[in-house]
């Protein structure tokens, strides 16, 4: 979806295929996503609707590729579009067909925990929202057709072949989970042993139990739930060495949610290494422990069912050495992520698969989004397991590459939307109250609220919907608006932050100004916080609806501004991320200013010896890249340069660069922040600073490069020095990889030397990394595990270093004389980040890393439009992930630039010059520098910069400032009406 949107938003046409009847993939099967615990479908559904209604996206679901011929630039693709025998134009989504269908088959959407009929809708928010007949299990009785009032079912319809000519292809077929029937955990034999995906369905409000956690065997609530990690992953015995990368986090998430809903349920996670490597992951893991999730370091050997129906898990606690047979009520297996049936597809496309059946990338480090065939790109888990933000970044990167293949074609201008009509003076308000499944309707009486809405003055129409955000609901809303001549809409549902634009677009589709709209949040502000008092929650919902109706009654149409966007970009930071972003922007036809504070390009990569896990010397990657940047005429490089000042807004920035005291002015449209990371010297930890042979990772890299490594008989690596602690509760992500890589190097350099790696968890989660780790162990590097409460001691005396580490596996102290000690020092955002934060007004978070717009689905965007983020400036990461993000950021930045213009939301402030006294307080309080003093001495608002926060409006002593969409009159009427007693 992300890849399709990135292409389509730039003005190019995309055909999006999915073999399921609906888009959404695996994300819509999840309950919540880590590490924010956001509702998954709430995050995904707006994107799905955006895809469904995008004029440049040709959406073909229930379709597969049959044949591909030709070459990059002109592929001829034949698509086999299966028919669902239901006419999307006629289907109203009433569901009568499902009720009368006699066939029941296992429901793959619910991971086989429930049944579905032969005619079905995968989930309520499906896009397209059309019922489908699975002809493979349909018995042809015709009951559905007879019962369909809309006469939408046509058994005479047939599947079709459709042909397309495309310049490039992107494969994003995702993953499925292993069903471990051959393992000793009883999966397939005992109903209470399930996969984590099945547990996700149990947790989901749209799942087989509406979110109730129950045992499949007897429907009772479990008291003790266990998770077993690495089931089928990290297991050569079952032919899979690789790490599935996301299971540590999703098991933690599932356990946390369980504890959150039911503090009386005990949760236990059996793990080997907690791979909480990403942004916010370690903190999330700590939170889970605080919430009482029990973590046991062990790989259970088997699970069997006792006569009393409980599941017994047999394991050895590898810290205490105790062998236990412990009873649980429900056992969840975190099984391997495996490729989703790509073998046939790979043959059709003519692309290679790797040894695990995932799509083989052209280069693991440098081009993880390119396949073995030119013109065909790959994104997401089809290339290898990864989480949502990494998938999204890779998708943007694939979109970028796919578009470079199309570069000589002009983007199509967006078609004109429906002509807007005048709303008329009298407000005619329509109210739609949403059940949100059980999320709202489970805690307040939605129907009562709807009836109440009908009694309000100005309300001409009120209805309730199961899921107001679903596609078919939009159809009904549009019909109701037209039929009842509604000219203002209130939707009482969830948060406008996620869903307002959806309903606004619905209004625009029927010719209403999309700002004649108000959302009453009766979920976050009502059902979620008053879940124990149905009566009063219902009353409050009525109050909220009433005040929304009053407000929208006073709403005037507002009109968006269109501003042009310059085709020039500023990339701040000339490391691998900055250079990759710059190169790809240039290839898309943009002109790039690449600004680097040091005297050469290359960033931290300049000091790296070899890369992990490819073992390629960094210079073999850096030199060609530097050459390409130098030869690219569309990139202008500024060395020894920093950003001094900047003004303007998306599409129209003016900045002053400073280089050794000399200033230079430039103009550009978008900004990509790629300022990278810096290593913190861990003074005071593990003897750092007390001996010249106690080094940080980067210091060792430099010595390896310069061939100045001191002699050693014993070298010891120590992980997490001053990371993953109270002071810095985050993971540096690349420390384990670096330690393992350099341990191997030091061993190869001196085979007789003894090399030890002291670690807390080994976080080798990426592609080929687990195999690398095994190889390093086989080469004789010894790994010793310690825990946070019993850290190693490093004693320096008379020039000798002695390390004492408490080996958890032997439960004993081991004393090692070390000649060379290498510490995984903490990594933080570059120190220029503080300045950039102020200059660009972008948020900076923990570790001096910038904060993106949304942790899951917008990792490369900032809340401020026009500024983008990639690489280690976002959070520390390896080369492959940095390059994906960098090329992805290029794609993101290119959206407004290639499109040529952006629309500015009209919720801005407005100064009444007659009332303005020129005091200038508003200028001081504006966080976006959006107010300036004009030549007339009065304040003027730069609408393109204004974010509508209201600070100026609240501070103006003259009352001269109005917030469009939140006028004083509107706010006053809301307060007045809320203080009334509802009838």
């Amino acid at each position, binding site marked *: 979806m992300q890849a399709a949107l990135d292409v389509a938003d730039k003005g190019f046409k995309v055909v999006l295929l999915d073999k399921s009847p609906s888009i959404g993939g695996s994300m819509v099967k999840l309950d919540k996503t880590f590490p924010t615990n956001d509702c998954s479908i709430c995050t995904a559904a707006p994107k799905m609707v955006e895809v469904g209604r995008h004029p440049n996206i040709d959406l073909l679901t229930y379709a597969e590729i049959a044949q591909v011929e030709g070459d990059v630039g002109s592929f001829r693709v034949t698509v086999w579009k299966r028919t669902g025998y239901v006419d999307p134009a006629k289907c109203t989504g009433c569901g009568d067909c499902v009720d009368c269908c006699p066939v029941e088959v296992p429901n793959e959407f619910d991971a086989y925990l429930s049944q579905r009929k032969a005619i079905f809708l995968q989930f309520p928010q499906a896009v397209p929202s059309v019922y489908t007949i699975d002809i493979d299990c349909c018995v042809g009785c015709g009951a559905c057709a007879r019962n369909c009032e809309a006469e939408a079912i046509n058994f005479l319809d047939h599947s079709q072949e459709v042909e397309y000519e495309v310049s490039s292809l992107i494969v994003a077929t995702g993953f499925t989970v292993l069903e471990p029937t051959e393992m*000793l955990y009883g999966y397939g034999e005992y109903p209470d042993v399930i996969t984590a995906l099945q547990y996700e369905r149990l947790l989901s409000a749209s799942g087989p139990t509406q979110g109730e956690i129950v045992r499949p065997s007897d429907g009772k609530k479990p008291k003790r739930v266990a998770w077993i990690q*690495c089931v089928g992953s*990290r*297991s*050569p*015995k*079952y032919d899979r060495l690789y790490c599935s990368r996301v299971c540590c986090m999703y098991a933690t998430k599932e356990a946390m949610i369980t504890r959150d809903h039911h503090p009386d349920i005990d949760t236990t996670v059996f793990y*080997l290494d907690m791979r909480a490597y990403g942004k916010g992951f370690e903190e999330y893991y700590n939170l889970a422990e605080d919430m009482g999730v029990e973590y046991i370091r*062990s*790989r*259970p*050997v*088997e699970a*069997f069912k006792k006569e009393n129906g409980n599941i017994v898990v*047999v*394991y*050895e*606690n*590898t810290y205490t*050495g105790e*062998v236990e047979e412990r009873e649980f009520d429900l056992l969840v297996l975190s099984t391997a992520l495996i490729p989703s049936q790509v073998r046939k597809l790979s043959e059709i496309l003519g692309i290679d698969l790797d040894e695990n059946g995932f799509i083989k990338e052209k280069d693991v480090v440098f081009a993880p989004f390119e396949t073995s065939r030119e013109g065909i790109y790959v994104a997401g888990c089809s290339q290898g397991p990864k989480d949502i933000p990494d998938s999204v970044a890779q998708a943007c990167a694939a979109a970028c590459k796919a578009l470079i293949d199309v570069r000589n074609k002009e983007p199509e201008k967006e078609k004109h939307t429906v002509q807007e009509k005048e709303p008329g003076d009298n407000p005619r308000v329509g109210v739609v109250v949403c059940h949100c499944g059980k999320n709202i309707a489970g805690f307040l009486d939605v129907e009562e609220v709807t009836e109440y809405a009908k009694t309000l003055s100005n309300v001409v129409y009120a209805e309730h919907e199961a899921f107001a955000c679903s596609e078919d609901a939009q159809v009904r809303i549009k019909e109701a608006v037209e039929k009842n001549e509604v000219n203002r809409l209130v939707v009482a549902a969830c948060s406008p932050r996620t869903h307002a634009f959806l309903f606004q677009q619905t209004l625009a589709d029927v010719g209403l100004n999309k700002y004649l709209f108000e959302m009453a949040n009766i979920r976050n502000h009502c059902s979620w916080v008053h879940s124990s008092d149905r009566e009063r929650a219902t009353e409050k919902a009525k109050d909220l609806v009433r005040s929304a109706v009053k407000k929208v009654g006073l709403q005037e149409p507002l009109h968006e501004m269109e501003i042009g966007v310059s085709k020039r970009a500023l990339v701040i930071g000339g490391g691998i991320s900055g250079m990759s972003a710059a190169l790809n922007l240039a290839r898309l036809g943009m002109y790039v200013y690449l600004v680097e504070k040091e005297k050469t390009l290359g960033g931290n990569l300049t000091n790296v010896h070899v890369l992990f896990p490819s073992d390629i010397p960094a210079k073999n990657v850096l030199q060609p890249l530097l050459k390409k940047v130098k030869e690219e005429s569309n990139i202008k490089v500024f060395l020894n340069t920093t950003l001094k000042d900047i003004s303007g807004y998306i599409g129209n920035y003016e900045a002053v660069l400073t280089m050794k005291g000399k200033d230079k002015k430039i103009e550009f449209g978008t900004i990509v922040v790629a300022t990278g990371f810096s290593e913190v010297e861990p003074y005071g930890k593990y003897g750092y600073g007390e001996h010249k042979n106690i080094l940080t990772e980067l210091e060792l890299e430099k010595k390896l490069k310069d061939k100045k490594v001191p002699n050693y008989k*014993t070298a010891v690596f120590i992980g997490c020095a001053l990371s993953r602690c109270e002071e810095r509760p985050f993971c540096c992500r690349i420390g384990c990889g670096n330690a393992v890589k350099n341990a191997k190097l030091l061993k190869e350099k001196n085979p007789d030397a*003894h090399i030890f790696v002291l670690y807390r968890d*080994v976080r080798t989660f990426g592609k080929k990394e687990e195999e690398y780790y*095994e190889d390093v*162990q*086989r*080469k*004789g590097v*010894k*790994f010793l*595990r310690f825990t946070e409460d019993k850290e190693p001691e490093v004693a320096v005396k008379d020039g000798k270093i002695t390390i*004492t580490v408490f*080996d958890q*596996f*032997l439960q*004993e*102290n*081991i*004393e*090692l*004389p070390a000649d060379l000690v290498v510490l995984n020092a903490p990594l933080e955002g570059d120190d220029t980040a503080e300045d950039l934060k102020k200059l660009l007004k972008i948020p900076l978070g923990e570790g001096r890393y910038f904060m993106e717009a949304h942790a899951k689905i917008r990792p490369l965007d900032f809340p401020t439009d026009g500024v983008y983020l990639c690489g280690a400036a976002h959070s520390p990461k390896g080369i492959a992930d940095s390059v994906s993000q960098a090329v992805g950021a290029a794609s993101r930045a290119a959206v407004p630039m290639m499109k040529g213009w952006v629309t500015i939301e009209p919720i801005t402030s407005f100064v009444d010059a007659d009332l303005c006294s020129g005091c200038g307080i508003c200028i001081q309080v504006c966080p976006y520098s959006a107010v300036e003093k004009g030549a007339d001495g009065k304040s003027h608002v730069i609408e393109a910069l204004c974010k509508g926060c209201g600070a100026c409006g609240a501070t103006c002593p003259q009352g001269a400032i109005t917030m469009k969409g939140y006028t004083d009159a509107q706010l006053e009427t809301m307060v007045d009406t809320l203080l009334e007693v509802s009838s």
Partner: protein
Amino acid sequence: MITAEEMDFDFTEEIEEAVEQGFSACFQCGTCTARCPSGRVSQYKSRQLFHMAQLGLKDRIFESEDLWSCTTCLACMKNCPWEVKTTDAIIKMRMLAAHSGHVKLEHQPLIKSLLSYDNPWLQPRSGRTRWARKLDLKDMSKNRGDVLYYVGCTAGYDPRLWEMTKSVIEIVTSAGVDIGYLGKKEECCGGTVRGIGHPDIFERLARDNTELFDKSGAHTVIYSCPGCLNTQKNAYATILDINQRRMHSVEFVAELLKEGRIPLKEIEAVVTYHDPCHLGRHCNIFDAPREILKSIPGVEFKEMQFIRENSWCCGAGGGVKTGFKDRAVDMAVRRLEQAEETSAEYIVSACSFCYQNLLDGIARSGSPLKMIDIMELVKEAMKNGGD
């Protein structure tokens, strides 16, 4: 406190070479320990033994009784997700220990016995023929024959097992098979002594037996003890040519039953079957004994919870019966408790060693189960014979 001086990485490398660098990749998941029968009745943790080996703590290992605690049941190796050759590593470690003079005290008589008498029981060679005295069994160390019954030391010398050995002969002879044995020339297969780290003694025994087999003209050798079968079929093959079909008596008898050469009558018995480690996990023979049990009319066969590859070791193998007498019986008692859950009358096995140890277990715990070998059961059910 462990110091660097204690770490001898040459020791680690020697083991790793023998087991193809398996356990260096072990990251201590604990799967092996959780499945180890010896660990359930002692403080032995196989995982820690491997970690000590990874760290080259040779002296610790040699001086610890942990090294001798393994029954070589193979449960750890079969379950290890990283496919580490755990049991092979232990045997190699035992070899290195023995080589440097570290032999478990209790094993010393066993080794001396093998050197002097070709059997581990300190019994005279002629004692091997006692069970067959009244049988007029062909002596294939002198005469040629088709099928050779390799009795093994345990069955040969322990009178408790002679019903079983006699049953084998009776069953096979009734089917018209020309069977014989090696009499007092039979030497110990060498399985145990190999398992406790003496490959030189093992090799000598292997060569002696192989020479006898080849001279006898037998095309098939059948066994009662799966330990002997495993040793002579698999271990011998690593150093010698195998010129005969080598099968366990259950396989042989299962074939005869299928061919209808052993008519059976109905007997009443509720039985459960214990998969011996060396028959099951080591040789992958799970079905033949079950086919036999299911084909005897009137026998009600109830499976235990942990069977086939998942069977729990009786506790006798790997030198543990001799090295840790009480522990071996502790493990037997544990296995009997699992068998008791089936409410069967009889616990049936197909291994001399298991028979012995489980019998000791029954004696200790007073279990209501009756120990019987599968051959005894078949003999009972024979139309033309038995009582």
